[in-house]
């Protein structure tokens, strides 16, 4: 039975007179095409969603961007603030990166119907690369088990906050379990192959002694008959590649998207000093003209729309804010460091970032639907098509993020410092505060006397004393 299934599953390597295309090959090519076709559209959709937000002019030297990309993304520098998770994460990460080399051969084999096409031409180098991957895979396997243990059996506070509802937790476990499946695939594929080589079965070229499989293979599969071994080898190969394809398809829906997006996110991360909030030139110029200073700015265009300041929805965020939201792995280091969160307030920086992604996905899906009920009411008659410009579903980020959360932020930058991939969870909070104060004229009631006092006394406190009265007590 096994042999029949193998025949169907994959080109039989020992059959030199086989027809040019076997069923397995055709199935592989179809799955490959479907995967990459789907991925193309899905990832393009995410990029278009990010592009819904405001354009950002990149400032600062390109050398700093390279530095961030290499040290923070490739080098995992910020992960190592916390050594233990960092080292296990590093195992999985390096295994993931290096395994991509092997993927080249797997895809060639799948399309061409060959078997380990690079083994003979590369010789000893092939043994070295595959052995290297095997060591990393063992480490990744251990790390994955540790992560499953940490997430499910230990109570680590950052994995158990309010925003870690059913889906984020399930998402994390799906990824970890899929990794285990993938790794089991690799070792079945290599292990059975070694035994088949030792049996001298035709079509199984010498790979040299693979460091893990040459021990594990005979141990696990020694004494199995040939057709069972071929089945295990083929099944392992298919499990591995299907897990890889599964990842590609699953990632756009998952927090695990960071394995790709962390790289652009560190590259595009803003380089301005942390203490510099984004300036609002339109307000600066208005105040300047009020004070009669600066060059006379032209009055801001046609004022038919009442200007809105700050951010109400994803359209008012910038593209780096949205890229950050899609890059977030929901690790919760930001929330674990947040003084508001630590003291039991509703604010959790991770939730802010997750909310932005959720809202962005909601907007994107509604725009994709083309449903005219999402056209802003005053445009519904004249406009034919739903566009980002006329979009209004009566919802905004304020339906996800409450004022209570926004008001709890101390702007201490602990979340910014904590993020291993340079996401800034604080900037969106401050943009939404600006919307509250400047556009809605609302906010914490305690702040109203502060604003009044700042306007009238140039001090946050209502003081009747002179500003330099303290001098009187100098001795």
């Amino acid at each position: 039975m096994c042999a029949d299934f193998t025949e169907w599953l994959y080109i039989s390597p020992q059959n030199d007179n086989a027809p040019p295309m076997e069923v397995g090959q055709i199935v592989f090519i179809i799955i490959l095409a479907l995967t990459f076709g789907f991925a193309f559209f899905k990832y393009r959709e995410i990029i278009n969603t990010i592009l819904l937000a405001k354009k950002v002019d990149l400032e600062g030297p390109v050398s700093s961007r390279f530095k961030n990309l290499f040290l923070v993304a490739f080098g995992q520098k910020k992960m190592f603030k916390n050594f233990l998770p960092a080292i296990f994460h590093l195992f999985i990460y390096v295994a993931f990166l290096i395994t991509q080399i092997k993927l080249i051969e797997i895809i060639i084999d799948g399309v061409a119907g060959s078997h380990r096409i690079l083994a003979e031409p590369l010789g000893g180098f092939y043994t070295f690369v595959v052995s290297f991957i095997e060591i990393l895979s063992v480490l990744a396997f251990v790390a994955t088990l540790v992560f499953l243990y940490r997430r499910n059996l230990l109570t680590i506070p950052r994995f158990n906050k309010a925003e870690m509802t059913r889906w984020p937790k399930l998402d994390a476990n799906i990824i970890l379990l899929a990794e285990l499946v993938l790794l089991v695939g690799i070792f079945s594929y290599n292990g059975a192959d070694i035994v088949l080589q030792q049996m001298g079965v035709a079509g199984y070229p010498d790979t040299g002694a693979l460091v893990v499989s040459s021990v594990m293979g005979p141990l696990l599969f020694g004494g199995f008959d040939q057709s069972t071994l071929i089945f295990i080898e083929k099944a392992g190969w298919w499990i591995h590649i299907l897990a890889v394809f599964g990842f590609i398809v699953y990632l756009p829906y998952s927090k695990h998207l960071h394995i790709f997006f962390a790289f652009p996110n560190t590259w595009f991360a803003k380089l301005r000093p942390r203490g510099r909030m984004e300036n609002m030139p339109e307000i600066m110029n208005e105040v300047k003209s009020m004070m009669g200073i600066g060059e006379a700015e032209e009055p801001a265009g046609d004022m038919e729309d009442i200007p809105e300041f700050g951010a109400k929805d994803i359209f008012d965020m910038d593209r780096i804010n949205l890229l950050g939201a899609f890059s977030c792995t929901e690790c919760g280091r930001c929330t674990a460091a947040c003084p508001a969160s630590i003291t039991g307030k509703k604010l959790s920086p991770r939730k802010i970032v997750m909310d932005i992604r959720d809202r962005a996905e909601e907007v994107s899906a509604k725009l994709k639907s083309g449903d005219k009920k999402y056209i802003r009411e005053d445009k519904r008659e004249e406009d034919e098509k739903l566009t980002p410009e006329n979009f209004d579903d009566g919802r905004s980020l304020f339906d996800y993020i409450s004022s209570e959360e926004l008001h709890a932020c101390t702007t201490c930058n602990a979340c910014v410092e904590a993020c291993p991939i340079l996401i800034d969870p604080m900037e969106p909070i401050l943009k939404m505060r600006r919307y509250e104060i400047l556009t809605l004229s609302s906010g914490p009631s305690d702040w109203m006397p502060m604003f009044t006092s700042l306007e009238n006394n140039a001090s946050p406190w209502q003081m009747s004393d002179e500003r330099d009265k303290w001098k009187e007590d100098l001795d």
Partner: protein
Amino acid sequence: MSEKKLFVKTMAELAAEGKTPEILFWVGCAGSFDARAQKITRAFCKVLHNAGVSFGILGTEESCTGDPARRAGNEFVFQMLALQNIQTLNAYEVEKIVTACPHCFNTIKNEYPELGGNYEVLHHTQLLRKLIEEGRIKVAPGDKDTKITYHDSCYLGRVNNEYEAPRKVIDSLNMDFKELKRSRANGLCCGAGGAQMFKEDEPGDKRVNTERVEEALGEDPNIILANCPFCITMLSDGLKEKDKQEDVMVYDLTELIVKNNNW
């Protein structure tokens, strides 16, 4: 030093005398109006005086830098205050500023340039370090048995990446110093930043300053040192809540220099 009364002149007074001081001391709202922070202001004046640093203040011409307004979201009020300050500073052709408040320091240093205000800005701990290293002030060794710990303010530490200057000053005090568990980049906020100083905490399990004070008390210090008038208020309030205000003192670094030197 107390036999001669110390006079602090405003930039207007100095300008009238045709003098340009070495540095402008930006006092800030807390340093000007808050009774506790006024002591720090006076202590810092003493240090400057003893170091022979010529300095001026803006006096009534100084306004809030706008930091709490901007972080609360009120950009209009921020711009009004900031542009006014920049006009004043530029009128006196100020080049160098020192301030004992990390929020003033941050805003003038990082946010004023975009609005047309470019100055060399120092936090007072940075100037203190410099004065000590240049030998312009000598710090008399303190009591070796006094246990001190240090709270990093967010806006000097994490935001402006200055962890060393205050620690160099602490070294010069020669007292029994111990770091808090959460220090430097991992320092925990006092709870005052982002205009929280001017409102009640949002509902939660406890106040942020309570959390921080509990951590500090874990080190059993005699003195908690800080570099920010708002942190000092928050830490003092936290100690009061724990009824520890008699046992543990909260000081600015400047104050210990003055204390050790008996100025």
